[in-house]
């Protein structure tokens, strides 16, 4: 079973990488980009039936640093968040 975890910096946490990419987009002539924030997509191949609580623990213990990052879990079907 494929599960996707999307990790992103919390709102308000400075993202210098995103800022640099934003600047580069403007340099390439793309106008009208308000902001760029860079996150991380983690694809997990887990045993069928793995519950959301387990994935959530993986996120909280390792995949995301919840001091600075939030995460969303996709691919678990209804109720996944």
């Amino acid at each position: 079973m494929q599960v996707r975890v999307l990790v992103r910096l919390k709102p308000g946490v400075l993202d210098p990488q995103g800022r640099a990419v934003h600047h580069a987009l403007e340099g390439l002539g793309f106008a009208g980009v308000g902001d760029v924030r860079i996150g991380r997509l983690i694809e997990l191949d887990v045993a069928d039936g793995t519950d959301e609580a387990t994935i959530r623990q993986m996120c909280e213990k390792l995949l995301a640093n919840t001091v600075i990052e939030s995460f969303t879990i996709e691919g678990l079907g209804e109720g996944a968040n």
Partner: protein
Amino acid sequence: MAFRAAVITFPGSNCDRDMASAIAAVAGAPAIRVWHGDAELPDRLDLITLPGGFSYGDYLRSGAMAATSPIMRAVVAAAQRGVPVLGVCNGFQVLTEARLLPGALLRNAGQRFMCRTVALTVGNAASPFTAGYRAGEPIRIPVAHHDGNYYADAETLDMLEGEGRVAFRYAEACNGSARDIAGVLSANGRVLGMMPHPERAIEPAAVPALGGADGRRLFESALASFAAA
């Protein structure tokens, strides 16, 4: 009795020899080298140090993988028993990832790797690690990092400042750290994480632009505070 200080080496640590050398120079006893895969620490340690470098290639986040290593479980347990821990640079990142210290180290605000000697001020000169300094004293210690931008929420920052847990602050623009925080103490003052490298500043260098001796008192303070009676 000889001072028993351990230096933990992770794959990708690159300041472990500097740390061991600084300890040996100040304590007069060789540091005990510990490998990341060891499940147990040597017994009767007076100090555990986590050196700088790029543990596990900075995979996922700086310090994140090291924080899950077997030896870090032992370090966390030791710290909870009150064994002193010093984390420098990547070691500071590991301490925050292991939640022994609050906050996190983000990419430098200017995006650049900072490698130079910076001006600091001593924020708290009453801790076991900083007793050899004067509060507010200006000192100079080298930094070398890409992810040194200290972040914590406002409530945590207020708490750190209110409890005197800011050990060092940058006295010049460096990496965008919240409230110029360069080093943070645990609530009991026995865990210190800092981005600047005191182990690179323990003796006057032949070339004045290099080194300096302002880091030496940190090790002397630790020795005086933690040496087994």
